[in-house]
Each structure stands twice: as structure tokens, then as C-alpha cells.
């Protein structure tokens, strides 16, 4: 059953700040508004695992005090931004569980670098939101806390794994959410919920304090209503960090009002193999073709190119990420932190009983596959091959980005499915990641933008850029979003 979407009270930080600056709004009223939205809809949609109501209000009152005495310009660049955190980001002295029983009761001893930076910029964190366990899944059904529902149609999934983040923004329970994207976990739920999902380049934002799934793929990303808000969050979170050696020293260019106002003419490629793919819902294909035609009419250069590796991206992705996951998740052994099985009577039982009862089915599947592809006798045939395919993909994408600014494709080949619909065969859901895993395999920045509806359900279109080209990508995204809204 479909319900009408909540119309967000604010669609951008700029609108919030204008209201604060002109005295139409206080920080406390702002937080009260979102708390009211959460109280109204959280029970039915199962978005927030925990709401930091008192703390958010306390922080709001402190900001009101500073606003009164020093003015808005003296506050940080994210003052007015009320955000939620996906339950994979550490926030000092708050619980973080990766939506897993195995971390039940775990309290962070430090804040993720990204979280400290948004707090230092005066954002308000309103709570932590649901996701697939250890960010493994595309539907937010595989959570210890139960599934999250799509606000547009609660019988359908919101996508995943950052499904709680997407619905929190979609249902106006916060202005923005910080998620993580290992194979599309920010972009695909954004597409399913009709919001903007942005994943920066690998290495752009420190992963310190992000619970690991697959370390050479994981990247922190954002769910917002606008590209400008994604840029504001990126500007604050990006940059080198002594706690993450893979974090790039490349400086992020500054975003300026002039650049936001300009409309760049872009050279855009699309993959024939992607739009003609047998797995793509023909209605999404048709809408995407119309969308591309719209871009052409606006003066952008669009060209079809061939990408014959398309059917290898999902297999390569699942070999490599499950291998990394099986290694990363070996730390959850019931000894030093988290939940321990109460009946374990020996160290061996502590490991095995804790992990067996602590992890859900999807996590176990991936750990098992990962252990298999890394094991003696199979390593070269699976893990080694997948690393070579990844190299091939990186080379191919680099060559394409010499000729094109962006590559465009649908975000998802399918519409948001009904809860439980994909439970029979896990590979069915994996294959639905076909358009998003490419950016993670090659470390590219990518953004999913709302691109219309099919039978009342939102679809997304995704743009990818060369590594560390977030600025032109976001400026371009803004120019089309604004035109779409106009």
C-alpha cells in the first residue's frame, strides 16, 4: 500500500540557516521538530535504533546561546544541520552495534574522525539509524533490530545497507544522514527513497571509527536532499588523518557560490551494455533513456560506449569483499569486547558459540564465502582472479575518464522490492548491485540523484567521475537537480 511522501520542512542547510539567521527559528525548535517527526513515524518505519533526544536538545540550547551572542557567522559551517549516524560509525560514549547482536551493548571509546569533524563544525547528531548487519545487504532487512520500511510504501524495502539513513532523510526525521558505501550502500537506498546519495572517492574521508566490512571498498558517504549539502558535509569530513593510512593527502578544492551558480557543459558516457542489460527493468530503462535525452537537450554531450566487463563486476566484487569481510570480522570473538555467549565453557566455545549466535544469516554466508575464496587450493582461482579483474576494471575506467567527465547509468536495475521477496536466493539480491559496485571496485566518487518515478516508486540515476573529482561531480549534480526542481 502506497502512502504519500512527507514534504520535508527544509530541503537544504541553506534554508535552515536562513531561518535561524532571520530569527524565524531556533536550534531548539529545529531539534524539537525532528524529534516530533521521529516520534510520529519511527514505530511504523523502524528507522532509529536510538534517539539522542536530551543530548541533541542540550546541544541545540548551547548553539542558541551562541547564536544570540555571536551571530550565525561565528558558528561552524554545519550549524543548523541535524544529522543521524548509520549504526556503523563510532560516536564516543555512545553505543554502536553494526545492527548486530555480536556488538550488543558496545560503547565507542572514541569518535570516528568523520563524526568528530561534523561535531566540530557544529552539526547536531540526533541519533543512530538502522542498517543491514555489518553493512552487508541491499535492503535493510538483515538487521538484529528488524527491517526498516520505505516511507513511500511501508511494504517495500528502503534499499540498503544504509536504509535507515535513507528513510530518516526521506521521512524528514533529520536533514542529512551519514552512511557508508561499500558496494552501493548509500546510493541504492537513496534511489529507493528518492533522495541524494553520495559516495566520495576511496581515500577521501578517513575510515577511522567506521566499523569495517571490506576495507579496500568501504567509504563514508552522505544522504541528503541536495548536492550542496553533500558538498558541505564532504568539505568538513574530507582530508588526511593520522589514524587512517589510506586517507589521501590530496586537498579537496573549495566549493564557491559562483561555481554552484554556473552550469558546466559535460561530456558524459553511458554504457550500452548497462542500458540493454537483461536484468534491467524495462520501465527503468525507458525512464533513464528519457533522462539522458533531457541532458542532451540541455546541451550536454552524451555518447554510448562499450563496457563488456559489466557482467564481471558483481562476481569480482563479491569475491573480494567477502574475503576482506571474513578477515575483518575475525576480530569478533567474544573475548575482548561485545557480546559473549553465556553458555560458553571453554575458549573454543567462546569463539564458536559467540560467533554462531552473534552473527545473522547473511553475515555468516559472506564470512563463509570469504574464507572459501581465501583458502588453500582456491585462492588463485577466486581471490587472485578477482584482484586481476579489479585491475582490468581500474585501467578501463581510467581510460574512459580521459575522454569523458562522467559516466551515467541507472542506480539500480530494479524497483524497491517487497519485504522478504529476495530471501530465497541471495545471489538475486547481489546481482541487483550491478550498477553500484563499479565505483567501489575502482575507488570512484559517485552520486545517485532522484530521476522520477515508476508506478509511484522512485528511481535514481547515477553519475560517476574520475577519482578525486568530487567537486565537478557535485557541481554538475547540483545543476541538474536545480533544473529538475525548477
Amino acid at each position: 500500500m502506497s502512502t504519500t511522501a512527507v514534504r520535508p520542512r527544509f530541503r537544504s542547510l541553506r534554508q535552515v540557516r536562513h531561518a535561524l539567521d532571520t530569527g524565524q527559528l531556533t536550534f531548539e525548535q529545529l531539534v524539537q521538530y525532528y524529534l516530533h517527526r521521529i516520534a510520529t513515524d519511527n514505530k511504523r518505519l523502524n528507522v532509529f535504533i536510538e534517539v539522542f533526544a536530551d543530548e541533541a536538545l542540550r546541544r541545540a540550547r548551547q548553539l542558541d546561546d551562541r547564536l544570540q551572542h555571536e551571530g550565525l557567522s561565528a558558528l561552524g559551517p554545519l550549524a543548523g544541520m541535524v544529522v543521524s549516524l548509520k549504526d556503523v560509525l563510532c560516536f564516543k560514549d555512545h553505543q554502536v552495534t553494526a545492527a548486530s547482536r555480536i556488538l550488543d551493548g558496545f560503547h565507542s571509546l572514541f569518535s570516528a574522525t568523520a563524526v568528530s569533524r561534523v561535531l566540530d563544525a557544529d552539526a547536531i547528531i540526533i541519533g543512530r539509524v538502522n542498517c543491514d548487519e555489518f553493512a552487508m545487504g541491499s535492503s535493510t532487512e538483515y538487521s538484529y533490530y528488524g527491517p526498516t520500511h520505505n516511507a513511500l510504501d511501508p511494504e517495500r524495502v528502503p534499499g540498503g545497507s544504509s536504509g535507515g539513513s535513507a528513510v530518516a532523510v526521506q521521512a524528514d526525521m533529520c536533514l542529512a544522514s551519514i552512511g557508508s558505501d561499500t558496494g552501493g550502500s548509500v546510493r541504492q537506498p537513496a534511489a529507493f527513497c528518492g533522495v541524494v546519495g553520495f559516495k566520495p572517492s576511496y581515500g577521501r574521508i578517513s575510515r577511522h571509527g567506521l566499523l569495517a566490512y571490506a576495507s579496500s571498498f568501504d567509504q563514508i558517504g552522505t544522504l541528503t536532499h541536495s548536492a550542496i549539502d553533500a558538498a558541505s558535509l564532504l568539505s568538513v569530513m574530507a582530508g588526511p588523518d593520522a589514524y587512517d593510512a589510506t586517507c589521501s593527502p590530496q586537498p579537496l578544492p573549495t566549493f564557491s557560490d559562483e561555481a554552484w551558480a554556473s552550469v558546466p557543459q559535460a561530456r558524459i558516457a553511458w554504457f550500452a551494455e548497462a542500458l540493454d542489460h537483461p536484468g534491467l527493468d524495462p520501465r527503468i530503462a525507458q525512464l533513464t533513456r528519457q533522462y539522458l535525452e533531457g541532458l542532451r537537450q540541455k546541451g550536454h554531450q552524451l555518447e554510448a560506449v562499450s563496457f563488456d566487463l559489466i557482467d564481471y563486476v558483481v562476481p569480482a566484487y563479491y569475491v573480494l569483499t567477502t574475503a576482506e569481510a571474513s578477515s575483518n570480522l575475525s576480530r569478533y570473538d567474544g573475548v575482548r569486547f561485545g557480546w559473549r555467549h553465556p553458555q560458553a565453557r571453554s575458549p573454543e566455545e567462546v569463539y564458536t558459540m559467540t560467533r554462531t549466535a552473534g552473527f545473522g544469516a547473511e553475515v555468516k554466508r559472506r564470512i563463509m564465502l570469504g574464507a572459501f575464496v581465501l583458502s588453500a587450493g582456491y585462492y588463485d582461482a577466486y581471490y587472485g582472479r578477482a584482484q586481476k579483474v579489479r585491475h582490468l576494471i581500474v585501467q578501463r575506467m581510467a581510460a574512459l575518464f580521459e575522454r569523458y567527465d562522467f559516466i551515467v547509468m541507472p542506480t539500480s536495475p530494479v524497483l524497491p522490492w517487497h519485504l522478504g521477496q529476495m530471501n530465497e536466493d541471495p545471489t538475486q539480491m547481489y546481482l541487483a548491485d550491478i550498477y553500484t559496485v563499479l565505483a567501489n571496485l575502482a575507488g570512484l566518487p559517485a552520486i545517485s540523484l532522484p530521476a522520477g518515478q515508476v508506478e509511484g516508486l522512485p528511481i535514481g540515476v547515477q553519475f560517476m567521475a574520475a577519482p578525486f573529482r568530487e567537486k565537478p561531480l557535485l557541481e554538475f549534480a547540483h545543476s541538474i537537480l536545480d533544473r529538475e526542481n525548477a
Partner: protein
Amino acid sequence: MHIDDKLISRLELLTRLRLRGSERERLRADLEKMLSMVDKLSELDLSEVMPLTHITDVWNNWRADEVCGQLSREEALRNAPDTDGIFFRVPKVIQSKSKST
């Protein structure tokens, strides 16, 4: 590829997971489906391609060898399922046996 019981047992040992009854059968079937999906990689000729081990050009990025970012003992033990206040505690490793072997 056929996944037999012996292979499942080996993976159970490697991953410290124990699968019983219907869960074991379900996982065996799922793993077969997953492997048939990833077997697609064997179609490509990769003889001239090197494996990719670093996704960006940032590697061997060392910080100065200075003590920092340490947790206190109290903090390190705060999330432990069992502790004596100084160490993590686990059930006895060496059990006393009534019969010598």
C-alpha cells in the same frame, strides 16, 4: 562447484562458526549458488594482468613513530564481556583431567 559436507566442516573450522540441521543445508545450497555466480570470472583471459593490491597511490604512508592514541586499561576493559579488572577473562584453557592420556 559441488560443496560437500567435508568442505563445509573445513569452513566451519576456519570461520569458527557452527552450522547445524537446516541452517547447514541452507548455507550449503546458498554457497553453491554464490560460487556459481562468481565462477563467471573464469571466462576472462587474465594471463597478462597483474592483481590489484592498492586502490589509490597512497601506500607505505607512515606516521612518526611516536606513542599516541593509547587507551587506558580501564577504557580497554570497559566493553569486555568478562574481566578481573586487570585482564580479559576467558574460561580455563587447560582443563584438569581425571585420566591421563
